């Protein structure tokens, strides 16, 4: 349901509502377009795209925890050229609003390369830079775990695009605010908070990790309070718009994320267990707003200080 009550503006881009499927939990939209009309969504963050095609990690890549899913997919994607030549044209016919191009890399160069290619795509409204990947030139530490490397990636992508750049931060850090501030200083136009939390499960019979990769990223309702806390902490310290992400499953969760400081909200794992999740959230929003006496969603952004 599109009503002006749910309109928000994200880094200058008007969205009908703040609900956006999170990268990696919606593919490139084609499968989901068979389930519902994608145009009800605020935007779509496409599967993390890298410079070169990637198969990702060996199977099994999925495990489960209470209230969440553990994944070690490892950024499987066809590579930026094929995404541009095949996936984006297909998505353009299914979704008629600006999309969010989520890009990943294993060196600063990789990020800049993928970003520069996406910059040429009219359909791309926002570039979302996933800095949770390991830096192969620096001992495999994730870019997003240190303010300097997160800032280096931000500067490199900002230099090659005029589109708004949202840096998507990893929650696997002791001080998310310092990293957020480093990205802000490096020129980021916004932040997505958060990616998955590093986790693990063991198969008791086999006495082996369930995931072939041993560890993976945990997400789903179990991480909602952690993601919310990080959104709130960063919103207190930074002036950048935030896309809140982590465990969002209901219209109330969307409102809670926005009160904590999010301008828009991404829904990830919930799409996996309930393919209608985003549709239901969008349909439920007006009633949830009525119950909470919220006139316009834009009014509650960062209401909690």
């Amino acid at each position, binding site marked *: 349901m599109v009503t002006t009550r749910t309109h928000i503006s994200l880094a200058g881009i008007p969205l009908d509502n703040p609900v956006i499927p999170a990268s*990696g*939990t*919606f*593919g490139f939209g084609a*499968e*989901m377009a*068979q*389930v519902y009309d994608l145009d009800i969504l605020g935007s779509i963050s496409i*599967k993390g795209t890298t410079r070169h095609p990637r*198969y*990702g990690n060996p*199977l*099994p*890549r*999925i*495990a*489960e*925890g*209470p*209230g*969440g*899913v553990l*994944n070690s*997919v490892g950024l*499987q994607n066809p590579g930026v050229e094929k995404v541009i030549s095949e996936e984006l044209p297909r998505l353009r016919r299914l979704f008629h609003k600006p999309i969010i191009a989520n890009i990943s890399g294993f060196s600063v160069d990789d990020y800049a390369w993928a970003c520069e290619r996406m910059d040429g795509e009219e359909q791309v409204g926002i570039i979302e830079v996933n800095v949770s990947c390991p830096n192969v030139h620096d001992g495999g530490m994730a870019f997003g775990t240190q303010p300097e490397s997160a800032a280096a990636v931000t500067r490199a992508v900002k230099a090659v695009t005029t589109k708004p750049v949202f840096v998507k931060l990893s929650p696997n850090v002791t001080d998310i605010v310092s990293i957020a501030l480093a990205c802000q200083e490096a020129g980021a136009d916004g932040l997505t908070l958060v990616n998955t939390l590093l986790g693990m499960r063991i198969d008791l019979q086999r006495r082996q990790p*369930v995931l072939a990769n041993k560890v993976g990223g945990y997400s*789903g*309702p179990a991480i909602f309070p952690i993601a919310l806390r990080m959104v709130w902490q960063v919103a207190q310290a930074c002036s950048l718009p935030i896309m809140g992400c982590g465990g969002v499953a209901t219209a109330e969760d969307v409102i809670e994320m926005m009160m904590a400081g999010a301008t828009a909200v991404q829904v990830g*794992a919930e*799409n*996996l*267990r309930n*393919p*209608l999740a985003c549709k239901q959230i969008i349909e439920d929003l007006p009633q949830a707003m009525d119950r909470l006496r919220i006139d316009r969603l834009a009014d509650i952004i960062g209401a909690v200080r």
Partner: protein
Amino acid sequence: MVATMEKHIFTVTKNAALAPNVYEMQLEGPGCAARVPGQFVNIALDGLYLRRPISVCNYDGRTLTLLYKVVGQGTRQMAALGPGRTLELLTQLGNGFSLDVPGRHMLLVGGGIGTAPLYWLARELKARGREVSVVLGFNTAAEIFYTEAFRPHSDRVLVATMDGTAGTRGFVTDAISRQGLSFDYFYACGPTPMLRAVSQALSQPGQLSLEARMGCGFGICMGCSLPMADGTSKRVCKEGPVFRKEELAW
């Protein structure tokens, strides 16, 4: 095979043990459960974040039959559901078996609970006038189920047990070679080691139904993506779970 996922509430009409830890559940619901044999449903269960994928054992447009083995929390929960209880299913998932294959004599090979999707397949093949041989492998005689159910829809049913307490002693491949079955095409479902052995032992073309731990079951998470012989990868939940022998990287 183009199939569109649907989400429906199905009601349990029957749920009974067939063998130790193996159950047959029948359900009815308002929508289509599957279009072709070999497809699966993905079942939401209380308190479990991920759905549980279970093959369609039989579907006649009204009654959906599932066979499942209790191996953990989710399947244990299923075993406790009596008639009248409801389950939320994603239906019509996966590609299913292709019935449009060359040859007259079809061999269906099942290992343990992997027997499930072969039942509807046998029915459909028999209805199309094919000769159908079924070979089922179990650990021991006490664990055997569904051999009688297959009889009306097949020309012969052979059994292999690991301990020799029924049928041929050993693997399904031992039963096939011992009986000197000559067939044109095979279909197999069962544990991965069995599928590997079957696809290596049989020179005929065939299709194999695989398993993978699934995040979504409908193609959006890439959690089940399997490397293929040609260097590409395919999703077990979407392009699979049924693959042609030559597609597989083993």
